[in-house]
């Protein structure tokens, strides 16, 4: 019910919205919760387990009950707190976790079975019959569990991430935070002031308190305006600091105002990483409920929330309100209600000595012990020495005292300390390096103490930054003492809720203790206490107190559970912003990409690169047809392939040769200028890391190539070897992968093509030779190397000419009866020739396994040499690289099939090896494979079974040398 007065709503701007299909009206400045309360709606949700009707408990992000779903389709957002959801025109919200309706929920029947559904009941049953768990019990449980639902559709709204940097981060813009920010700003520090609310002010916006002689909210607004005008202050409202991380890094989630988020190109939310040299935590405090029977009735809410609805949103949460507490806050609440013209039916103060100066029915030393009204509070029962009295009330404002919002101080494993004076945990100093706490979050509850504390904390933080804080001018404000009589759970029958959302009651905690879940972590895990969406913000301390009581220990020795990031939940889309679709990893395009796509080539991922799979021709209906044709180009005429993705590293210096001798197994210092050599690199553990060719371009100048996959790893490895193992070597290197566009020109007509294309004929460049050439006047490099077993070259030009050169090469190759070839053909060509890729050098093979044991030079040390000599890497019985061809009725080979003796069962004990690469060879007219076979080199000629259970194929294969095509290499050398 809306009441008169200004508050922070704009009555000139009515806002229409829908809840569960019904149309209502609120005002700009409302939250969904305040607007629903104003419209007399009390039931806003259902609890998790018992599906009890629930109303709003709080007025902040800690809300456990009033969770709704907003949006439709890809914009559907479950579990939105009605208490922080800003009302905007057209907002459509729906209640959740109920069927068929919020008012009548079928699963509310669970409430009747509550005696059988106590803490941990599911660990003791549903075990028989065994198969029923997956088939019956679990599906039923899963359907009943959960809160809201995802739409199942991909998110379409934009989210973003960003970095910010500052000297001082102030978390919370209440009185303490505002004072801290101003103090630091005046000292010249770069300040970021963050608050989760839409406006600065914190509790000042919810109270009728004065600061500096003016209403607190007004004072806060003026402070915020002053700060906003300063160039060294950045105010970020609607922003929650979600986590404190190492090195002064804070995570923060910003929700953009609805009207800003709706602009084209604007994000809905931004996840910030704030790097702060120092921080002031001024996050305030959260009020805690009191556990008593049926304290979860709609209409029972925290006293602070009642005041917030009254003062900020000008909404009376009831017409006839009772107030129950154990501090002066109860009196403050009653006074605010009276001032707003709301009837107070009872003021119950648990403190026996309490006095009341208000004209309301007053109960000192009394406790509320029960609440009536299933769909909305109707009456409460008050227990006092004289007996139980029932009082009518449609709203109960309850306060069990305040818990400092110290969550961030726990994010680095800091444990809070128990302060018996305020019956609450307070943060320990230094829990987060560089962070100082101020105000209510350290247990200073008066306004004056917050203002002072903010200025003091800023001064302290500034000192660590080498800045001097100016003398702070502390405004006038209330400074009342905090007088609390701890009250956690009111004794009595009936279920008294601790964790509202997860339906954890005092009984559950006590039962957990009986069953020996006495550690607070055990209790939490056994009962699910504190594991709901509020992460125990409303209930952990009370549950701990109940456990302490049940186990006969004090609260400090019972301990605390740990608060972990995020402070309040953060959408996956926000923290993973930009990664959807292609954004997950950058895309790397070769210079021939456009030309390949224009030829219809499907482009496939190769690391971050894209490479053409094959180049289809009209009439071809299957990739194999294209592949076979392209293999034919290379074997019969000339084929063109872009090989620019291979890593290329330019290596120079006096010790370049010696350095290469150290990283390669074989020797490069003896390589002649103008020649190329194949090299093998090991990891230090003795297994093969990578292979490739290395050309000697000059006396002190080499060009190394790596595989596409390992380019980054090899670069890192070279830097490691140089900087960490051989820093005295005079050698420098830099990646030139992107500098050169490089193309394989392969096949018997490759030389003819190049003779015609290059500005001067190739001449008699020998196999494994290299040199500088020009093409169209452009300086280029030519290497006579081959990955296909044919007479072949690789031609490299500066990348700007890559596109033009590829088009030229492809066209000329076509003129000679060839053309471009893709990865599929490249793969078949190399399998025919027994050349390896990372399918074979998959990290577990030695040089000897792939038949290159002799490439480890005996004359010198190299990385990996010592460990390669370990017995396990050199003894007989290892799996060795072999070639395989089908010899039985089944002609197909599949990679991943395992090898067995013909008469052996296909089980692990008989496993002899496996196939790594297969392809159909048009050259041989049959499938060919490469694989690893135990002692394979001794088994050439044997016939084995290749069994692929997954594809349900079994093929008889003959073992042979990996090199199946042109074994003597004549074609390459010709």
């Amino acid at each position, binding site marked *: 019910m809306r009441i008169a007065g200004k508050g922070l709503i704009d009555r000139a701007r009515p806002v229409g919205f829908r809840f569960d299909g019904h149309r209502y009206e609120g005002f700009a400045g409302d939250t969904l919760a305040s607007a629903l309360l104003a419209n007399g709606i009390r039931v806003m949700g259902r609890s998790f387990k018992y599906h009890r009707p629930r109303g709003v408990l709080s007025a902040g992000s800690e809300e456990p009950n009033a969770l709704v779903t907003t949006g439709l389709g890809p914009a559907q957002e479950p579990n939105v707190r009605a208490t922080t959801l800003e009302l905007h025109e057209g907002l459509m919200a729906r209640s959740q976790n109920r069927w068929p309706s919020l008012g009548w929920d079928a699963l509310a029947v669970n409430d009747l079975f509550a005696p059988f559904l106590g803490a941990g009941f599911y660990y003791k049953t549903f075990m028989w019959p065994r198969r029923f768990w997956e088939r019956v019990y679990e599906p039923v449980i899963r359907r009943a569990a959960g809160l809201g*639902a995802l739409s199942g559709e991909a998110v379409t709204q934009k989210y973003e991430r960003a970095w910010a940097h500052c000297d001082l981060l102030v978390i919370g813009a209440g009185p303490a935070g505002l004072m801290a920010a101003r103090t630091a700003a005046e000292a010249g520090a770069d300040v970021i002031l963050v608050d989760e609310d839409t406006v600065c002010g914190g509790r000042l916006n919810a109270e009728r308190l004065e600061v500096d002689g003016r209403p607190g909210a007004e004072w806060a607004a003026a402070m915020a305006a002053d700060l906003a005008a300063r160039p060294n202050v950045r105010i970020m409202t609607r922003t929650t600091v979600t986590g404190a991380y190492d090195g002064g890094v804070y995570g923060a989630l910003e929700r953009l105002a609805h009207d800003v988020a709706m602009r084209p190109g604007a994000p809905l939310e931004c996840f910030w990483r704030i790097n702060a040299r120092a921080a002031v935590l001024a996050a305030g405090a959260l009020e805690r409920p009191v556990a008593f029977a049926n304290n979860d009735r709609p209409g029972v809410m925290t006293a602070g929330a009642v005041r917030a609805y009254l003062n900020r949103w000008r909404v009376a949460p009831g017409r006839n309100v009772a107030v129950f507490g154990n501090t002066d806050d109860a009196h403050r609440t009653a006074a605010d209600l009276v001032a707003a013209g709301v009837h107070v039916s009872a003021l119950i103060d648990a403190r026996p000595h309490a006095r009341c100066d208000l004209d309301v029915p007053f109960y000192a030393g009394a406790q509320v012990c029960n609440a009536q009204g299933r769909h909305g509070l109707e009456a409460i029962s008050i227990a006092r020495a004289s007996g139980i009295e029932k009082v009518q009330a449609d709203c109960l404002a309850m306060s069990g005292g305040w818990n400092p919002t110290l969550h961030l101080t726990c994010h680095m494993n800091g444990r809070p300390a128990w302060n018996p004076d305020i019956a609450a945990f307070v943060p320990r100093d230094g829990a987060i390096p560089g962070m100082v706490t101020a105000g209510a979050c350290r247990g200073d509850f008066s306004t004056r103490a917050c203002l002072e504390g903010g200025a003091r904390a800023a001064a302290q933080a500034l000192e660590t930054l080498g800045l001097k804080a100016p003398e702070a001018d502390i405004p006038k404000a209330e400074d009342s003492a905090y007088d609390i009589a701890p009250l956690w759970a009111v004794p009595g029958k009936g279920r008294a809720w601790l964790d509202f959302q997860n339906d954890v009651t005092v009984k559950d905690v006590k039962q957990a203790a009986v069953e*020996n879940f006495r550690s607070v972590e055990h209790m939490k895990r056994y009962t699910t206490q504190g594991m709901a969406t509020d992460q125990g913000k409303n209930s952990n301390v009370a549950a701990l107190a109940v456990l302490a009581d049940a186990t006969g220990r004090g609260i400090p020795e019972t301990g605390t559970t740990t608060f972990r990031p995020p402070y309040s939940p953060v959408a996956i889309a926000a923290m993973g912003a930009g990664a959807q679709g292609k954004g997950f990893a950058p895309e790397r395009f070769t210079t021939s990409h456009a030309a390949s796509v224009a030829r219809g080539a499907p482009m496939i991922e190769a690391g971050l690169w894209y490479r053409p799979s094959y180049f289809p021709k009209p009439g071809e209906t299957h990739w194999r047809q294209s592949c076979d044709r392209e293999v034919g180009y290379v074997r019969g005429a000339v084929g063109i392939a872009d090989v620019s993705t291979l890593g290329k590293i330019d290596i120079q210096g006096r010790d370049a040769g010696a350095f290469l001798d150290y990283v390669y197994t074989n020797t490069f210092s003896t390589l002649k200028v103008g020649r190329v050599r194949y090299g093998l690199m090991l990891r230090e553990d003795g297994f093969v890391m990578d292979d490739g060719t290395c050309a000697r371009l000059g006396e002190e100048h080499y060009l190394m190539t790596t595989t596409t996959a390992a380019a980054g790893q090899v670069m890192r490895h070279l830097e490691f070897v140089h900087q960490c193992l051989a820093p005295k070597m005079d050698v420098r290197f830099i990646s030139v992968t992107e500098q050169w566009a490089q193309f394989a020109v392969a096949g018997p007509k490759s030389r003819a093509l190049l003779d015609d294309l290059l500005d001067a004929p190739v001449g008699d460049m020998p196999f494994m030779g290299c040199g500088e050439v020009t093409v169209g006047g452009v300086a280029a490099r030519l290497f006579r190397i081959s990955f296909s077993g044919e007479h072949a070259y690789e031609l490299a030009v500066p990348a700007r000419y890559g596109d033009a050169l590829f088009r030229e090469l492809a066209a000329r190759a076509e003129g000679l009866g060839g053309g471009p070839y893709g990865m599929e053909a490249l793969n078949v060509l190399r399998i025919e020739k027994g050349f390896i890729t990372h399918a074979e050098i998959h990290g577990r093979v030695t040089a000897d396994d792939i038949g290159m044991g002799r490439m480890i030079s005996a004359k010198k040390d190299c990385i990996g040499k010592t460990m390669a000599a370990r017995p396990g890497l050199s003894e007989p019985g290892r799996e060795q690289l072999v070639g395989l061809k089908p010899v039985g009725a089944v002609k197909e080979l599949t990679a*991943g099939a395992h090898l067995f003796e013909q008469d052996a069962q296909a089980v692990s004990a008989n496993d002899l090896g496996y196939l790594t690469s297969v392809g159909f060879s048009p050259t041989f007219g049959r499938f060919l494979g490469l694989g690893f076979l135990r002692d394979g080199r001794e088994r050439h000629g044997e016939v084995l079974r290749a069994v692929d259970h997954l594809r349900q194929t079994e093929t008889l294969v003959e073992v042979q040398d990996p090199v199946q095509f042109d074994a003597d290499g004549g074609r390459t050398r010709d």
Partner: protein
Amino acid sequence: MRFSGWRVLREGLTGNRGWRPHWRDAAPKSEYDVVIIGGGGHGLATAYYLAKNHGIANVAVLEKGYLGGGNVGRNTTIVRANYMMPGNSEFYSHSLRLWEGLEADLNYNVMHSQRGQIVLFHSDGQRDAGARRGNAMINQGDDAELLSRADLRRMVPYLDYDNARFPIYGGLLQRRAGTARHDAVAWGYARGASERGVDIIQNCEVTGIDTKGGAVTGVQTTRGAIRARKVAIIVAGRSSQVAAMAGMRLPIESHILQAFVTEGLKPCIDHVISFGMGHFYISQSDKGGLVFGGDLDMYASYAARGNLPMVEHVMEAGMTLMPMIGKARVLRSWGGIMDMTPDGSPIIDRTHIEGLYLDAGWCYGGFKAVPGSGFSMAHLVATDRHHPPAARYRLDRFRTGRGLMDEEGTGSQHNLH
């Protein structure tokens, strides 16, 4: 007390007054046959199988904090047997079979749910490697199926098939893989061991290992000295420190692995799904939270908490793989301490000290190993012989290079598998 639906019913009708402690909190005696250092999943399981399989019940499990407070209480609850290297293959196969009978054995519902795990692949090369693995699984007697893109579209339609940075080529499904309620596994073993006479001693930290003439004689603890004929170190996340008490330097680096859970949601993900390109895996708990994680933070740590770069990387992977989870909100993140070995596979072995045994180095695969590890470790401690499924988990394999089990092919040096 035997747990059953009838018992729950009876207690419910009589005010739930008959429940008793799930396990007995014991005070340390001065001497035991076997002292197990570490009251986590593996330690409790070892105690349980020592008592059950070998009749050795004069056993103490010493836990420095609360039992199950280490990795068994902070993992992502996945149970699977999809290994291909000899050694791992037979071990995890055995462990999965134990899982399948665990509830009946323990009389404790650990909610082992065989909802199936799908490992996606994103290139022909990954499919071939996946096929090698799947065939190895079947050779071992476990189940595996190769799924096509079309199969996947039918089973898990919410993956991004059309725009993802790394397209989905298919997947390897193990139907018998799934999840279990992690805490319950520790509690169930504790209850089973306790009922068989094992002493479970919480808040008892071991501060020294006593030896004489090359043989173990007992341990020093914060609650006094305890003599023992045999001592087993089973302390994931503290292996190096405890082994150092016996003068050992282990092939282990301890790392942080983070995990995440979202707010509760209505059922949307039925399987366990692993994203081959993004170090990302996800399942949905019975409570409705999406439980997911990624790779190590990649720096040695005992802090059991991580940092944003990996947090964000995990979220990025989720968004590219299944953008329908974007609106799910992360409720909580946490970390566990992973004892990483050079080849990514564990150690169950004797040590150079007679009577001192080591069960360590589970990397990030320890949860599913709990039954198998307990079973095999109990066998080793009781008989001094390696249990065949765990016979390759030798401490000296790195020195000799024999029997390395590098599932990921990243090396048998500390490359952080």
